[in-house]
């Protein structure tokens, strides 16, 4: 059995230059995530949650330290290799959904599979299966502007999981939806984690999300404050 953590962050710091001032978004942060976890990065605004998600998702580079995904040091990968890694191993759920407005729900969910050059028939089957999983099969031909916020977030989740990634990174997934929709989305993610073994890492300060997490990683001012693993 492979004991290599899915995600390894070792002494990671991320410092941004804002004009003449340097701002440390994350400072000497270390953490390991195992496959199958359902974890939450929590903390107040500006505590570095989104920055850590971006670093794990290969969207940003650390100023110091090392980020590894499935044992691979991301700093050693070029732009194209990072693009392939994001395409094949990482699913993203953005706070503001970020669906493509000219594509239908089906096409948005299909996007990553198309990039992977999956044959059309298999793509259709997998997308319809996933849209069924998130309860959006009947709205597959609608465009984002014809869907509610919750429905758009479900499509974003479908897009994130359809390629069977190693990890789904979800940035404030319940921030823009009502309570009922938030509960439904969390139910869905919990079920996908439980039944399909997909690893989820959220950033949030929503108590409902924190209540469901099996691991809470508390952040403050860009530093690890407390790592709480629940039974």
């Amino acid at each position, binding site marked *: 059995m492979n004991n290599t953590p899915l995600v390894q962050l070792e002494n990671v710091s991320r410092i941004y230059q804002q004009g003449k001032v340097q701002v440390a978004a994350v400072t000497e942060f270390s953490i390991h995530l195992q496959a199958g976890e359902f974890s939450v990065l929590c903390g107040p605004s500006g505590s570095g949650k989104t920055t850590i998600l*971006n670093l794990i*998702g290969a*969207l*940003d580079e650390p100023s110091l330290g090392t980020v590894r995904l499935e044992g691979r040091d991301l700093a050693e990968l070029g*732009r*194209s290799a990072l*693009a*392939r890694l*994001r*395409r*094949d191993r990482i699913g*993203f759920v*953005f706070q503001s959904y*970020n669906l*493509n*407005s*000219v*594509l239908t729900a089906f*096409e948005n969910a299909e*996007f*990553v599979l*198309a*990039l*992977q*050059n999956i044959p059309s028939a298999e793509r259709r089957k997998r997308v319809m299966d996933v849209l069924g999983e998130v309860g959006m099969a009947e709205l597959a031909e609608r465009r984002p502007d014809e869907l509610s916020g919750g429905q758009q977030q479900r499509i974003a989740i479908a*897009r994130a999981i359809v390629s069977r990634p190693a990890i789904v990174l979800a940035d404030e997934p319940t921030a823009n939806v009502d309570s009922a929709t938030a509960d439904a989305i969390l139910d869905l993610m919990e079920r996908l984690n439980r039944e399909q073994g997909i690893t989820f890492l959220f950033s949030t300060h929503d108590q409902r999300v924190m209540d469901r997490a099996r691991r809470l990683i508390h952040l403050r001012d860009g530093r690890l404050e407390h790592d709480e693993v629940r039974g």
Partner: protein
Amino acid sequence: MQIVSFALRNFNRSRTRTWITIGAMAFACAIMIFYASLLEGWLAAMEKNGVGMDLGEFQVHAKGFRDDPDLYKRIGDEENVLARLGENGFVAAPRLYASGLVAAGNASSGVELRGVDLAREQLVTSLDQHVWQGQWLDDQDQEGVVVGRKLARILALTVGDEVVVVAQGADGSTANELFRVRGILQSVAQGVDRSGFFMTSATFRRLMIVPHGVHAIVVKRGLAGEDLDTATTRLARLLPVYEVRNWRQLQPVLARLFNMSDISLVIMLLITYAAVGILTLNALLMSVFERIPEFGVMKALGFSPWGLFAMIVVESMLQVTVAVVLALGAGLPFALYFSRHPIDFSRFVQSSSTIAGIAFDARWYCVVTVNSVVLPILFLYLVASLAILYPALKAAMLKPLSAIYHR
């Protein structure tokens, strides 16, 4: 194929801008197809006047004749030469030349006497179809001559007038004879217009006491599509004891004018398309900038930098292709119409105007050629490719995170 599929989906997302850009490209391309066809037509008319009326495609002379035209420097075995040319796929006609003086009434003028083999000459030039007044020569009419248009004006000649020719015959005697003007040519070329004095070769031989030989053999390619230089080399090898020149060598000024015309077309293409290129660049830049967050998400989801570059290039090439189809639909019928109905500039251009010594035809026809259609299209693709390079590279180099949050 996914790249094309993504590009197709984006094609019509900003309809007004897309169709304005396509419209501008189509308009410019259609105009350039028409202009290039008009230029081809103008060049064809010049070539017809210069080459098809007078020079012929090639001329064969006895060595030294070109540098020092002399009544005695003749091709002695012309029938043998003509037969060999015919066997090798060339069409040819012999000519005789001499200098003389022509008088009519109180006026006189130096002329170039030209003896023409009527049956063969019409195979290499179409001078016989270029008579302005009267008729072309006739073998049965030994007194009849045809003169250039300007010469007729200088001597105040009209059809039917008598003219006296004085020259020195090949035997040293004075050649002196009365002729009657049978026809006056349309404007052909400066030399022909000013001093062309045409008669049958039999009349010439009798007048100038030249029983044998010819001064020039005018040759035309029999093989369709054979390159001029290749045919010149072949001809020179076939007739090594004679001087062989093609029309570009015989009329270097005209040849340069033709080369310059190609350059002028390219310059016109560059100027016209530069304006289109700026418009296209602006539209494409706007299209890229307003989609930066979307590109960021696409990259976050795994779209490769070069995939994005290719998608943007394909998007613009799709626009160019639609523009080309529209341009062909508009420009080609326009050019084809004017290939049958000339634009008449005769109000503004004198009938005897010449360029590089060749008569300038005041009626401009379009001639639609592969070149006149393909060149504007290729240039449009080239300019659009250059215009898209910067926005596409910019999109390819975007960092996904900064692109997603770009405002």
